[in-house]
């Protein structure tokens, strides 16, 4: 579904990704793990076209999308849940969800209603908070809005950047249960996670990134048992230093 080849990108003149290649098949959950500063968010934002591509190629459904704009990419159904949630804080939960459905705003009303019902069924708490300003919600609730907002768009490929950052353990478990459910429903996901153990348990395939490069990849169960990966994501040593 998604193929990335030799992708280089960064900020201004400084190159952060030095030629990343990966691919995601339809229905797959792929996770990217790696230390802070490895370039995971840079990759996700490059895929969403918030950052310019220096070289390389991105293909979606066999179509070259390297030159498309950020909103074109959304139109294709590549939807990002950004790191740090990035809600529209002064707007209500309801308005945030409506903005999420901007991509499908011309769809039949029934479809939009169904989608909202699906999201509110996934996160019943959001129904209670519908008219509350997003900024006034708890961290966990805000993350539900962030994921709910992305689901409102009817994503074909969901990019999740550190969904569980800063959440309480029990909320993290709930989030992973939700992702499990979305996986069962066949949603294709690219999951960037600090909680590598849980991410690898959920994912089909995994990539390990360090300083802007993919340094390891393989089926998630294999990486889960890989000694070097275990060490790296448990923070005992840096994957690149051995």
């Amino acid at each position, binding site marked *: 579904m998604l193929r990335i080849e030799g992708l280089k990108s960064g900020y201004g003149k400084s190159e952060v990704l030095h030629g990343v290649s990966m691919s995601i098949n339809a229905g797959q959950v792929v996770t990217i793990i790696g230390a802070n500063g490895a370039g995971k968010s840079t990759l996700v934002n490059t895929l969403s076209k918030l950052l310019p591509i220096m070289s390389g190629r991105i293909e979606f459904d066999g179509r070259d999308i390297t030159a498309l704009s950020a909103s074109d990419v959304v139109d294709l159904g590549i939807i990002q849940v950004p790191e740090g949630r990035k809600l*529209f804080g*002064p707007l*209500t939960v309801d308005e945030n969800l409506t903005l999420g459905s901007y991509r499908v705003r011309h769809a039949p009303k029934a479809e939009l209603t169904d989608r909202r019902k699906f999201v509110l069924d996934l996160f019943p708490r959001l129904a209670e908070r519908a008219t509350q300003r997003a900024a006034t919600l708890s961290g966990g609730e805000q993350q539900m809005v962030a994921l709910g907002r992305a689901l409102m768009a009817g994503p074909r490929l969901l990019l999740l950047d550190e969904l569980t950052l800063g959440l309480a353990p029990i909320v993290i478990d709930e989030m992973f249960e939700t992702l499990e459910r979305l996986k069962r429903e066949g949603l294709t996901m690219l999951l960037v996670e600090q909680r590598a153990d849980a991410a690898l348990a959920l994912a089909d395939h995994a990539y390990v990134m360090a300083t802007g490069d993919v340094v390891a990849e393989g089926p998630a169960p294999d990486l889960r048992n890989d000694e070097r990966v275990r060490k790296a994501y448990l923070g005992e040593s840096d994957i690149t230093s051995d």
Partner: protein
Amino acid sequence: MQTFGILILSGLTNGSVYALVGLSLAMTYGASRVINFAQGEFVMLGALSTVLFVTTFSLPMVVGIPMVLIVCATVGFLVERLAYRPLVRRGSQPLTIMIGTLACASIMTGTALLIWGPNQLFVPNAFSLEGVTIAGITSTPQQLAIIATFAFLMALIWFMLYRTTFGLTIRAVGIDPAVATLMGIRAETIIAFSFVFSAIVGGLTGGLVGPLLGGHVSMGIMLTIKGFMAVILGGMGSPFAAAAGGIAIGLLEATVAFYGNSFYAEPIIFGLILMMLIIRPTGLLGEWEANRK
């Protein structure tokens, strides 16, 4: 009682003009987080291009005014495309961009000077300037048209911003254009719209107020300042706060001018506003608007 009525009416008329400028400044600010210091120049452009189309080219009002609005929309589009957008794309700070809009103001005044010269021009009136007396208070249809236009545009903007999906996207772009883009919203197009829309409001204001103020190439800056004051006085919260600020300034001005002397009305008003802002730093409605919903 009658003097009071006259005072209110003249305050409302001037206040509506400031409110219209404030409303359009707040509208652009809402989407772009930048104060467009060329906003008053659109009023000037509106007034003087009314002279051009209606007096010079002898077009009827119903044709002339739409032409005026097209001219203003085009110039508004150019300001966004040639000043705002290139600066934003280069990562400029809001302050830099505001200086950019000030440069646009300057260019517009200079160009207007070349076209219309330095003299005050008579701006043809769409509505009658004959006084009509209602309940002992004399006003002119032109005056009433200004107040009505303000009321109508405020209602229109309220509806657009708070009752339509399009308005929701405008507010979202103002909060965070990058995240709005992640929703598939074309943030640059929304911002361009806010500039063009404000330019049209400016042009309409110019066409309406021109007959009362007289058309002059340097009339813009005073209106920008008054509109900006309206925005600050009302609070940056919403276009309606700015509109309320504009009306407040108009009423204050009329009162000071009536009981004192219009010569020192301005320093007194600025002084009062300064005092008000020391007491309520967020403006009259700033806080209320922030807590809305």
